[in-house]
């Protein structure tokens, strides 16, 4: 068997074991809480169900986008657009993708992992994730509570902060890579 494929399978199994252990731990927390506070546990379950219903359309969109990446975007293309040689275009693309993406942050992890495996730089993954905080549809709500000046200045500084964070992560990742230390 191809060693790369073997490694990927091993990583997937590891993720699956970790995922089920994590889910099991959360179930235990729920079980323990239900002994003392059944009413709030029920409320929490209802809140979780509401979240699932809310994010379902976005999850479907993410699966379709992952399929698109797997089917049409070859690692060479991803590397060119978002990899080491992407330059300024890569940073701008990550900012816009982050701002335009909707739904909770964790829904986007699988797609980002896909893109990362295909050659997307870690710094750009961080830029994407930070810019998810810039929510254009929610700007009117922010303006209502804090004023237009605050909303615009905050948005500006958040984009700058995203670039700063991306650059720091890129530098640290390079340092670890040079030492041959892998991220697991």
């Amino acid at each position, binding site marked *: 068997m191809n060693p790369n494929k073997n490694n990927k399978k091993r990583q997937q199994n590891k993720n699956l074991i970790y995922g089920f252990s994590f889910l099991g731990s959360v179930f235990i927390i729920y079980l323990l809480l239900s002994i003392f506070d059944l009413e709030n546990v029920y409320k929490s379950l209802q809140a979780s169900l509401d979240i699932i219903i809310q994010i379902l359309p976005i999850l479907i969109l993410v699966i379709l986008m992952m399929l698109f990446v797997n089917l049409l975007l070859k690692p060479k293309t991803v590397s060119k657009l978002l990899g080491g040689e992407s330059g300024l275009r890569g940073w701008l693309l990550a900012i816009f993708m982050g701002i335009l993406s909707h739904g909770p942050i964790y829904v986007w992890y699988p797609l980002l992992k896909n893109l990362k495996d295909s050659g997307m730089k870690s710094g750009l993954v961080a830029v994407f994730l930070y810019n998810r905080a810039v929510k254009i549809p929610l700007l009117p709500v922010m303006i209502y509570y804090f004023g237009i000046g605050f909303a615009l200045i905050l948005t500006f500084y958040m984009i700058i902060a995203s670039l*700063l964070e991306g650059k720091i992560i890129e530098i640290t990742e390079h340092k670890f890579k040079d030492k041959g230390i892998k991220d697991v």
Partner: protein
Amino acid sequence: MANKKINKTSKETIKTSIVKTLKSFLVMVPILLGVILLIGLFKTYITPDLISSIFKGKLFQDTLLGSLIGSISAGNPISSFIIGGELLKEGVSLFAVTAFIVAWVTVGLVQLPAEASILGKRFALTRNFLSFILAIVVAIATVLTLRIFT
């Protein structure tokens, strides 16, 4: 004959891509479900009243607390604006409220296990730590700039 061969190859490619996509997604379902259940708990137990009771009226300490509470909170960003608005009315400084709403959307302690498992431990820890610090920096920069212009 050649066309038929190409069709067969592209059908196989589509099938392989669908299987690959579903496999990579299904592996992440347990962890996503765990995060959603944790957020459900947070929504029930971390109430706006509890949040506002933590601030003490000290500028630097409150800004740090704002970033810390925003980091452990989870949910729709609109909730952070509403809670932030209420905190301002109760006299909490704009520095602390800004740090709180920035950390709410950029740091995810509840999602950290999912992020670490999917995108790597080092990446997730570095990103969340930097976002926590940057929430304070962005808050200070925003409020000071706002004061210059108004």
